[in-house]
């Protein structure tokens, strides 16, 4: 039975690795300027974690195979070098891996969070609410008008609570149900939740950030490939959480400008 167990462990280990190696269910393709840093970090980690996984499972299996049916008079043997060797190996192997992953991984994180957006990045606000995203472009004045929570009225289409009568900055704001951005232009996204915790996750864009009620955050990104990509909520926000979705439309500069004009006309 021990030998069967050892073989099973090895088969499971190899079987588990096959879908990864064969890319049977791959990560969505990257369409962002800095996403390759995350992908490279992921690939390095997969290599190191994969080797650790396979080697330790196989070693476990070999020792189970070899030492499970000893002769009655067999003597117990000690691993060469004893615990000292294993402790040193643990520190060196994992310690090196930890330092390498930690240091190199910080670069990808830093590009996303420690680098400020370019001065000409396009400002767009996204508001999350049960169970939809709405977007706001500041219009020609480049300023977002203030939000008045008491004016929010979904039936009237005033999702943000704007006072377009009295607030000068709100008058040219453009509110949309999906976000369009020009390709290869940086976007500075201002994130606002009007009710609960939500999240803004676009796998292809390598962007993932929670909305925090009471704490407006910003992120920035540059999409490099024209297309329509799904935005999904990943922060449990109630019964319609699974259906909380919107689309990111990456357009050419010309198409983007045309679209924005059309949206302005619809306000």
């Amino acid at each position: 039975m021990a030998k069967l167990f050892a073989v099973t462990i090895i088969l499971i280990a190899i079987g588990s690795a096959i879908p990864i190696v064969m890319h049977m269910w791959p990560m969505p393709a990257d369409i962002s300027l800095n996403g390759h840093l995350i992908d490279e970090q992921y690939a390095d980690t997969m290599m190191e974690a994969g080797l650790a996984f396979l080697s330790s499972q196989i070693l476990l299996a070999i020792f189970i195979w070899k030492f499970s049916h000893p002769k009655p008079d067999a003597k117990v043997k000690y691993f060469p070098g004893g615990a000292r060797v294993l402790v040193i190996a643990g520190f060196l192997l994992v310690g090196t891996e930890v330092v390498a992953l930690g240091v190199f991984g910080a670069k990808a994180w830093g590009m996303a969070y420690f680098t400020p957006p370019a001065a000409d990045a396009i400002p767009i606000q996204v508001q999350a609410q049960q169970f939809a995203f709405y977007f706001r472009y500041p219009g020609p004045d480049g300023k977002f008008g203030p939000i008045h929570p008491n004016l929010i009225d979904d039936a009237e289409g005033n999702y943000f609570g704007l006072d377009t009568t009295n607030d000068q900055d709100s008058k040219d704001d453009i509110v949309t149900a999906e976000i369009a951005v020009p390709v290869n232009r940086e976007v500075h996204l201002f994130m606002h939740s009007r009710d609960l915790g939500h999240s803004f996750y676009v796998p292809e864009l390598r962007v993932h950030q929670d909305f925090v009620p009471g704490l407006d955050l910003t992120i920035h990104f540059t999409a490099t490939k024209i297309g329509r990509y799904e935005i999904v909520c990943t922060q449990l926000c109630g019964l319609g959480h699974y259906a909380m979705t919107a689309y990111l439309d990456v357009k050419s500069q010309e198409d983007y400008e045309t679209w924005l004009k059309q949206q302005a006309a619809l306000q």
Partner: protein
Amino acid sequence: MHEVSAHAAHGAPTSFIRKYIFSLDHKVIGKQYYALALVAVFVGMFLSWLMRLHLGFANYAIPGLHLLSKTGAPGNVMTPEYYLQLMTMHGTIMVFFVLTTAPFAAFGNFFLPIQVGAEDMPFPHFNMMSFWVTFVAFLVLISSFFVGDGPTLAGWTQYAPLSAVGSVAGPGQGLGEILWASSIAIFCVGQLLGSLNFITTTLDMRTKGMSLMRMPLTSWAWFITSLMGLTAFAVLMPACILLILDHVAGTSFFIASNLVISGQLLHHSGGSTLLWQHLFWFFGHPEVYIAIVPGMGIVSHVLITNMRRPLLSHRVIIACMTSIGVLSYMVYGHHMFVSGMNPASSLAFSFPTLIITIPATIIVLIWIGSLYGSKLRINAASLFALGFISMFISGGVSGFFLAQPSIDIMLHATYFVVGHFHLVMAVAAIFGIFAGTYFWFPKMTGHMMNETLGKLHFWLTFVGAYCIFMPFHYLGIAANVRRYQAFTDPYLIPLIPVHKFITVAALATGAAQFIFLYNLVHSRFWGAAAPDNPWEGTSLEWSTATPPPHNNFGDKMPVVYHDPYEYNIEGASSEYVMQTSPEQYTNPHEEK
């Protein structure tokens, strides 16, 4: 270390109620915890079956489901909110009432006093309260199925403000939510009382000769776990009380200003959404180790007995488990990388998270290295202990990904996380519980379990668990978001066949657990009589009668002369030497 006789011992009870219900005996309390965990695990597993049927086969009508909830399952088809309610209850029941109670409170209660040579725990009334308070917490939680609009749907992590604003946020967020927070606050009281007893037992109740380093690794694991429990539950309990106050007293601890929910402008102001996450995960990450460290102890204990040799280093294992306990408080922020917490904090939490893999890896290397040259006995207990190691490795390596904030951008809140924590803390911990059960059942009940059924149970569970939880990682890599009741997004639809496979595997693996249940119940009443030391172990639980008498050791308290694991020592008169044996010899492998 004190003379045990100096402690006030309670006499053997005579009435049924004091003997079996409100018992002060740590062994009965341990069994009560085990029974509670057993009920809880089958409830939790049943909920997971319902969830998996719903996920694998969209809009599948589950016969009889409307009997559980008319509004949650009209026409026997689960509503989106009912799915989330079942998911929340599954997570809560499993984490609190199974993974915390069984390896720590159940086995720890029964065996810690015996392994250190004590007559009982120092505060038997606290111990009895600990169980009954936990039992009440379970009833309070379960009651939420039957009142108002059902249990909370906010997930076992109960993120604010969804958990704090009341029924305006959705079904179950009113009374169901208050019941959840009350249940967990009560649960915390029980665990605090238990932890106090465990710590005092370890420090103050050890018998003559039982130095700290002579304690078995299980006792060390329970001791370290109780220290973690004392600090972690002491934070979660007030957090739950603050959450209840936000509901009933108009406070705003976790609710920010100017929130508009379901068209209503809330009158709360000034609270912090992230405060809940910090308080919860300050408890939540040590909780992961509260679930798994006792398993590490049990696996070490079971393996050593079945390898017929001590681990390569007793002290290194203790040092590593202690390091894990200390580091567990410095890593909790890795649950919050994309939460809106300062991005610099994410890096600060990332490094300890990566570093905690060093003691965990060393423990695994010591286990594997100790197999080398051993005389391994294969039985149901040792199979589950070895299965634990395999699961712990598989679940552990995915931690390398989630420890890095940059990769977490892709994997956070996906099924990758679900696969990771189920393997490393849930399945591994449950394998530890199974190993402990097959190993200690004879001592606890006086009967042997059926080995053939035990091995069959192992095979089905080992292969089944991998079939369920390994594909979760593939789904996560493909960006399959967790906590969705249906996969309607275009990019998720190609992944549905994987969900179907997981559902079938979950149903089959769950069904295999009834073999265990049958074996447990049948053996309890009709199993062969167990000898005092069926596995030829050396620690104190094997030097007393089976089952142990009321005061554990009869007329004479044990005196300890040896380390806990003296197997195959050259110069000793037998293959194994009990801790209580006065035989003198020199152990060439003794750690100095």
